[in-house]
């Protein structure tokens, strides 16, 4: 151990949930003025560990020290009093209030604040260059601004140790850069930042130290300067791993889908999709980039027939799909594996087992009044094997009890089993670990090879660029560009995501 006392030390932490050991004897420490990454696959125990540090969970055993003194947190309040604040993935902000009001909310005295508070908040925001307009309503803020506001909230409560739980998942590259600047500022100020992520390049770029967790255990703590992504991946996964996402180079086939002037309005009449036109080709992956809520959901649903289209056409082999029922569209060979934010809202029925989820796509073609479950049972076993789905059983085990990656594989497995000609897949790797992500990328490449036209919506720009042949960028329901993935940089995409239309006409590929 080092001579100087760590700012925070967690020793021999054990936490179990029922039979599942989430944290097994974990040791972890952070010093002042340090950005420390907590790296690990899903289910490695990162969030559990941090939830104990922020007082949400209580360890079964083990000790936590702040500046060498043992502490016991039995509520988030205790952790905040000890100077520890956590920014969660899901923001806890009141939309109709201003930034300032949100910061003060929940403090002693409620909204009755005096000028001193206002001054203090302004000073904090300036010191860390958070760039927040304190009088702006949360409803009018971008995701990046909201996150900075969350950080400000935590700082205002006196936090000197900041825990950021996958903060970059929802940010554009520009916003990510800004976040990193803030983190460095805090480091200079003597704060400690704990950065949870599984994005290797970000971890390498911003941190001083990295602690790798795997299956609830501490694997190793390394100095960022002395390691590389390859080593980190090996530590995370437990065996050597090829990190590169490979594009399958092949000639694209004939046009599969042609979307013309597609406009979809929300209830309030605001367009969710505004005059969107693009083509999809057989044997090609069309990546779709965009900040969450830029119209991705509506686009998927419009193609699948779930969304009322206000204007425009969607042609599949010169036949307009607009106005057709989801059933008719699916019967033509257009499959959707759409993963909404809660992952189990569409496509899969959370409370049902795998067999019944496969039946969803089969039963309407069966004759008679009764369900024939035999075929689905066989199929379930097949898919389980083919996609290496880890499940206690295909019957009587609701899919909601499976891990995210396995749920995703069930959904993809079912959709691909219908041998579609068009595959629409949204956020297929959200929240999945590296191994599973790569498995899914391989699956998409395989489909592409078979001649399927793939629409691939995701968050990670690196992957969108690496896997897709072309990238279509959506901003506020508009297409701001359709570009060649091979010749476009992340930064260019980032600018388009913020609404800037593509500059160089030459790159435009329709």
């Amino acid at each position, binding site marked *: 151990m080092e001579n100087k006392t760590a700012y925070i030390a967690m020793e021999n932490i054990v936490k179990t949930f029922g039979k599942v050991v989430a944290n097994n004897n974990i040791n972890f420490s952070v010093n002042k003025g340090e950005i420390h990454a907590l790296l690990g696959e899903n289910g490695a125990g990162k969030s559990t560990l941090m939830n104990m540090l922020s007082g949400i969970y*209580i360890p079964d055993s083990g000790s936590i020290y702040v500046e060498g003194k043992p502490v*016991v947190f039995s509520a988030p309040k205790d*952790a905040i009093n*000890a100077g520890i604040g956590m920014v969660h993935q899901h923001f806890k902000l009141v939309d109709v209030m201003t930034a300032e009001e949100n910061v003060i909310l929940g403090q002693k005295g409620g909204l009755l604040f005096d000028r001193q508070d206002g001054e203090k908040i302004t000073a904090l925001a300036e010191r860390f260059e958070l760039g927040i307009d304190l009088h702006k309503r949360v409803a009018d803020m971008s995701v990046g601004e909201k996150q900075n506001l969350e950080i400000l909230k935590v700082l205002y409560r006196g936090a000197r140790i900041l825990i950021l739980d996958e903060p970059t998942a929802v940010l554009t590259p520009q916003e990510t850069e800004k976040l990193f600047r803030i983190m460095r500022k805090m480091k200079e100020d003597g704060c400690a930042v704990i950065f949870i992520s599984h994005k290797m390049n970000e971890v390498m770029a911003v941190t001083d130290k990295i602690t790798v967790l795997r299956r609830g255990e501490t694997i190793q703590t390394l100095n960022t300067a002395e390691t590389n992504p390859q080593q980190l991946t090996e530590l995370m996964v437990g065996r050597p791993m090829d990190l590169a996402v490979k594009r399958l180079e092949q000639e694209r086939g004939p046009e599969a889908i042609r979307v013309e002037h597609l406009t979809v309005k929300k209830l309030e009449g605001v367009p969710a999709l505004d005059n969107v036109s693009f083509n999809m080709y057989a044997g090609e992956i069309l990546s779709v980039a965009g900040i969450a809520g830029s119209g991705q959901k509506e686009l998927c649903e419009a193609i699948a027939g*779930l969304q009322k289209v206000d204007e425009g056409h969607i042609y599949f082999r010169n036949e307009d799909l607009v106005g057709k029922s989801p059933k008719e569209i699916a019967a033509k060979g257009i499959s959707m594996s759409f993963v909404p934010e809660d992952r189990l809202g569409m496509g899969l*029925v959370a409370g049902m087992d795998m067999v019944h989820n496969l039946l969803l796509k089969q039963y309407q073609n*069966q004759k008679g009044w*009764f369900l024939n479950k035999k075929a689905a049972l066989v199929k379930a076993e097949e898919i389980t094997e083919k996609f290496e789905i880890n499940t206690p059983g295909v019957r009587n085990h609701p899919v909601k009890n499976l891990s995210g990656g396995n749920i995703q594989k069930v959904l993809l497995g079912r959709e691909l089993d219908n041998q579609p000609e068009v595959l629409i897949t949204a956020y297929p790797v959200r929240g999945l670990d590296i191994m599973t992500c790569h498995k899914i990328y391989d699956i998409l490449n395989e489909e592409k090879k078979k001649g399927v036209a793939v629409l691939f919506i995701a968050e990670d720009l690196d992957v969108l660029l690496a896997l897709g042949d072309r990238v279509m960028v959506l901003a506020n329901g508009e297409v701001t560009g359709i570009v060649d993935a091979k010749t476009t940089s992340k930064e260019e995409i980032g600018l388009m995501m913020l609404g800037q239309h593509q500059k160089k006409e030459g790159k435009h590929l329709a």
Partner: protein
Amino acid sequence: MLKVVKKAESSAGKKVLINVIGILAALLTAAVFLALSGFNPLEVYGAMLKGSFGTHYRFTQTVINAVPLIILSLGISVAFKMKYWNIGAEGQMMMGAFLGAYFALYHSTWPKPVLLVVMLLAGCVGGGLWALIPAWLRAKFNTSEAITTLMLNYVAIKWIVYLQYGPWKDPKAFGFPKMPNFTDSAILPSLGGIHIGWVIALVLVVVIYLFMNHSKAGFEIAILGESENTARYVGINISKTILSAAFISGALCGLTGIIQASAVTNNLSSALASGIGYTAIITAWLSGLSAPVIVIVCSLFAILTQGASYIQTAFGISASVASVLQALILFFVLGSDFFTKYQLVWQEKKKGAN
């Protein structure tokens, strides 16, 4: 300091164990309470069992109590599976009994088998149609069925009161507000000393089990209950599914109504349902909406009701004490459900954080 902590999903066996512990805790609590009130708890519990099974007659009564609960719970379970909160069993029961009673009172000359079949079908239709009103409102305007079904209960009961005091009043009852008794041809026959409703109930348990677990329509109801988006995606006609599930739910409640009117009370009156439609919501829920489990839970409930009534007579225990006993048992069983999902952890409070 005590903390509530979520735990991993309990296994089926453990859930049963927890529920059994709940019942035991209820009996224990009630025992303390009874002892303090001057009764010997063991004698009282013994009497409750005696009251439900002690004689052939009491056993018969217990079964007669269980039959309507079972059919109502089955009906409610169909709607609840769709997360369609049908609180209207009471009213649907009344309207089923009303339509069935129309044939019993005005076509009593029909041959008995024909009349009975028509009455049972009319019961289904009456309850089903009554349930369609809120279902249609839900499908069309997305109104909360929990409110509309509940409100329609009062409408239905007042309708029966109107008939009882007005057009359907028995002219032979000297002006007393009472509807005529059914003639023999409109009374369901008995099998094994108990009216044939018990056979209908058991057949329906099998039918509903098959319907919910092995039929396409039942599957669609379950999908819709889990996720309306998925249902749309699969191509299910949402409105049609809501309407048909509500109709089935109401039809079973209506059937219960006419069975009760025909076999048990032998006439229609505004007191026909008297709350059983609400009790059935509890039993359906406790059964986890599973048809076979409904039989067990409803039978236990019937035993409890029958036993609680008997101890009043046998021990002179007042009605309120008997109600407290029943409520205690329910409270603990429902409460024990909490422990299948959460556990309490004793947290030693050391030094506070500084």
